């Protein structure tokens, strides 16, 4: 991983630069105008968050099943990235809503459940931080519940009549908007992957260091 890091980082940087150019080139949406372009960052943020959530969820299942230390590192990294990408989604959303709906926030199902989902992973990190020894498994259970709720949040807009655009918007975009969207999403996913590997690597080094300290004391 350490060798592949530099080229991957370069590819991600190029993707982000391309995405910005493509977004600038994309046509203005007829009713919302310029502000619609936030969408090219808003949706990929949530895509990144979902990738992080499912990483954390899958790793947590392994943690619960056999107490794997490797899986635990992926779970922590996933939860932290879920909070990071979720924060990006939660910031870009209101910026768009202020122009499109006239309010920063509205209490409807999609927004509330998305906020709650984000809070579940904040709770995960709080437990890890303050729960003391043995909190990994407890946190893993929290992650499992969060992962179980995540698909409901995604489809919630289709069940309730809400102001939030439906999940059908992205797959049916015209090509002029679809391509910038896809490149941006890919850039966010690459960023997610890079950060995940960095964080897992950091956790590995911490574990090695802890072992060395223990060995020194013996």
């Amino acid at each position, binding site marked *: 991983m350490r060798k592949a890091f530099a080229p991957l980082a370069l590819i991600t940087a190029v993707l982000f630069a391309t995405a910005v150019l493509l977004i600038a080139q994309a046509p203005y949406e007829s009713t919302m105008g310029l502000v619609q372009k936030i969408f090219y960052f808003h949706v990929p943020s949530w895509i990144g968050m979902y990738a992080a959530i499912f990483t954390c969820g899958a790793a947590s299942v392994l943690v619960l099943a056999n107490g794997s230390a490797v899986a635990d590192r992926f779970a922590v990294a996933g939860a932290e990235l879920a909070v990071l990408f979720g924060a990006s989604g939660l910031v870009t959303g209101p910026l768009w809503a202020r122009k499109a709906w006239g309010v920063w926030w509205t209490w409807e199902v999609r927004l509330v459940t998305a906020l709650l989902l984000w809070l579940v992973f*904040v709770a995960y990190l709080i*437990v890890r931080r*303050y*729960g003391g020894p*043995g909190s990994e*498994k407890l946190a893993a*259970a*929290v992650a*499992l*519940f969060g992962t179980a709720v995540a698909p409901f949040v995604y489809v919630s807009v289709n069940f309730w009549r809400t102001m939030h655009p439906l999940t059908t918007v992205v797959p049916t975009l015209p090509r002029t908007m679809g391509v910038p969207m896809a490149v941006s999403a890919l850039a966010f996913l690459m960023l997610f992957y890079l950060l995940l590997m960095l964080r897992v690597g950091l956790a590995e080094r911490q574990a090695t260091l802890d072992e060395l300290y223990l060995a020194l004391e013996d």
Partner: protein
Amino acid sequence: MFVRTTLLVLRKDFAIERRSLEIFVTTLFFAVACVLVFSFGLVKEGRAPTDVAAAILWIAIAFAGTLALGRTFERERYGETIRALLAAPAPRPALYVGKLLGVVFLLAVAEAILVPLIGVLFAAPFFAKPLAFVALLAAGTIGFATVGTLFAAMLMRTRSRDVLLPILLYPITIPVIICGVRGTAALLATPADEPMAIMWLGILVAMDTVFMTIALWTFETLMID
């Protein structure tokens, strides 16, 4: 074996509680205090808005429920009886279900007092559609207690468990509370919107099933050591 263990755990908790009434009295008092706090916040010129009763009921249940959950396991920890309970040659999920039933039963008794109280104080016709209302209340309470019992049990060994329980519990159970509030509000509307309430009930039952499945599996693995 499973049912027998479940009932034994339930009977044990019930016997302790019947003698001391500690959790019941504190939980109920806290719930009533919650109702009063909200009424002070919401009443204008001597009258409460017509649609707040559903929200107040569910918030009182959620807050009081957290208190009850914490106490239920604190008692086990304090008496160091949890070790004996876990060492017993009984299926772990049965212990969980027993504890869960105890909490649900306790909350049900508290609700039996809370509902008429809120109904009178806020002029809310809770029993206009008794069947749908009781079903909503039951499904919501079970959903809340399912997650709550699991986390309260797991938090027993952690530091700062009193703080962590609400932090873990609320983000996950707020969807349950939202469904309960929306469903109850639909029943309280004039005229009562029963199809809407049934829809929320359906979501509640779906969530209960998912939560119960995860809880039974994780309790087994988490309580091993």
